[in-house]
């Protein structure tokens, strides 16, 4: 498979006080292949969204590279700058906050076309109608404002806006979180259909592991700014190597009372410490049920433990 996005030693530190630095993304390296859906899961504050925003260039990294189809996207003065936005788009978590309340659906979608298609007037109208239909909205709704739509419909508009420039790669940042279960399924099916039609590549950021399992080919698990495990979906769910992944998988509530009572949950003590003061050693050692002396001394590196199965743990 061909690599579409390569992330190399990416770091993003936020200065939060005079002597405080928050290491939101702390040395991450992995690849995204063309045509796949890569899931990115982890607790809130682990750096998932920051990573997604760096990839689509909403943030500049502190160091490291994002290489999209051979182009270093953060290199200053690159002639590809605007052109790159045509290839990479993002759909955000909160459809109530990511659409301008003073623009109609048609204007929101049309704006993206305006920027990238260099003024072909009649074309725009048709294109907006086509996009609305693609995402399952009636073209007659293009004159309405975001507040006139439901959450699911708004997320469809956000998807239409992302599709307007015909991207190859979309970062979906928790696109389902704000939606109800029955509506989530509608959006998931839409994303899957679009991927087939348009050969899209997704980075699907989520904290809902059952949904990630449903939609993704490979899954990366993040903890405190680092990728701690990366594997194909089935491999990850059947043979999780990292103790954090194991605990998280066991904590997914299953919609079946029999499964729930028979399966033993691994209850982790404590909570993720914040990313301000990282102790030496593995970031997970204070909560890890299997931690040993070496876990407190040296930090494990992400390394390939089996074919395509990467984990950052001394014990696996």
């Amino acid at each position, binding site marked *: 498979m061909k690599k579409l996005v390569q992330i190399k030693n990416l770091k993003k530190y936020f200065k939060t006080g005079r002597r405080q630095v928050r290491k939101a993304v702390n040395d991450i390296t992995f690849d995204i292949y063309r045509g796949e859906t890569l899931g990115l899961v982890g*607790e*809130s504050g682990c750096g998932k969204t920051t990573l997604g925003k760096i990839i689509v260039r909403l943030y500049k990294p502190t160091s490291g590279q994002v290489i999209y189809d051979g182009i270093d996207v953060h290199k200053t003065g690159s002639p590809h700058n605007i052109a790159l936005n045509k290839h990479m788009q993002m759909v955000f978590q909160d459809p109530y906050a990511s659409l301008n309340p003073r623009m109609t659906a048609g204007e929101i979608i049309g704006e993206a076309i305006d920027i990238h298609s260099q003024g072909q007037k009649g074309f725009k109208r048709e294109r907006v109608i086509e996009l609305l239909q693609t995402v399952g909205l009636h073209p007659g709704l293009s004159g309405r404002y975001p507040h006139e739509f*439901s959450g*699911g419909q708004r997320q469809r508009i956000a998807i239409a806006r992302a599709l307007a420039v015909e991207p190859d790669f979309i970062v979906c940042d928790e696109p389902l979180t704000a939606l*109800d*279960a*029955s*509506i*989530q*399924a*509608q959006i*998931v*099916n839409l994303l*899957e259909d679009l991927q087939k039609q348009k050969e899209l590549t997704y980075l699907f950021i989520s*904290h809902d*592991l*059952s*949904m990630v*399992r*449903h939609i993704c080919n490979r899954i990366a698990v993040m903890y405190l700014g680092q990728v701690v495990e990366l594997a194909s979906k089935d491999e990850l*769910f059947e043979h999780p190597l990292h103790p954090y992944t194991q*605990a*998280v998988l*066991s*904590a*997914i*509530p*299953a*919609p*079946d*009372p*029999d*499964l*729930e*009572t028979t399966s033993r*949950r691994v*209850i*982790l003590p404590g*909570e*993720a410490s914040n990313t301000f003061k990282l102790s030496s050693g593995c970031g997970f050692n204070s909560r890890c049920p299997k931690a040993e002396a070496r876990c407190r001394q040296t930090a494990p590196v992400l390394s390939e433990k089996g074919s395509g199965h990467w984990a950052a743990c001394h014990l696996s």
Partner: protein
Amino acid sequence: MTQLLSVKDLKVNFKTNLGEVQALQGVSFDLVMGEVTAVVGESGCGKSVTALSIMKLLPTPPGCIVSGQVIFDGQDLLLKNEKEMRKIRGGSIAMIFQETNTSLNPTLKVGTQIMEVLQNHSELPASEKKQRALEVISMAGLPDPEMVYKQYPHQLSGGMKQRAMIAMALAGGPRLLIADEPTTALDVTIQAQILELLQELKQNLGTSLLLITHDLGIAAGIASRVMVMYAGKIVESGTAGDIFHDPGHPYTRGLLDSIPRPGQRQKLSPIPGRPPDLINPPQGCAFWPRCGQAMLICRELPPQATNLAGSHQVCCWLTHRYAFNNY
């Protein structure tokens, strides 16, 4: 099987500029002592309004309890005045909320907030109250109670704040604990901790729990009885086994089909459309516009609850005993 609380034909409206929203349209159920009952449904279906009406915490106006009864201890809570309700809230019925940041007072130490509950609801002599406060803090699974007692909410993490709120709820020694989406704002590993804690409390203290959630997985994991709400009505209720293994209402089946299941890789089948507008709810069954099995009668007359096996109740014309095609 002693009844703890019984809600009868509760109807609640909200006045808005666009008209009256019929948030609850005749909700009836019983809670059994020592049981965990989950209320599931999508946002806006009336789960939280039900809980708030039991506690008489509905903002009035715009809310208005049109009719119904909430019987607790043989008395109708809806007839009680504010002063009497204050004795019950935080005492025999306590509630925990989703948003810890807005439900804890940011200007008071955790200890002070717990002491407030004890001052209002506990007969203990003043000297023992602090001891009791420390006790509930450690019951809620917080490490180092003395320390937490002196901390402000912002000094605690999300999971710890939820535990602090549970400690406050426990301080009054409630017989019924209402938990409104207690884990929605939390990460999955922290969620597992809080659910474990709630289960322990139920076992050790015998507290009944009314758990409001949109997550079917959580309901399956913790509840022995489950009620499914749709558009201001309970459309199905039964044991967790009834609901998850043998769902009777097309809406319940639709919900279960729209969430991914472990080990199954088929396309999700979402429920088409979206929940109805409760200002002008559809005539007949509120679900018919989205229902794949709707019949002519569904559009005209609202279905009555039918009893299937045991305590399994379904509010659907398909389960009517004269229905042509039994579900």
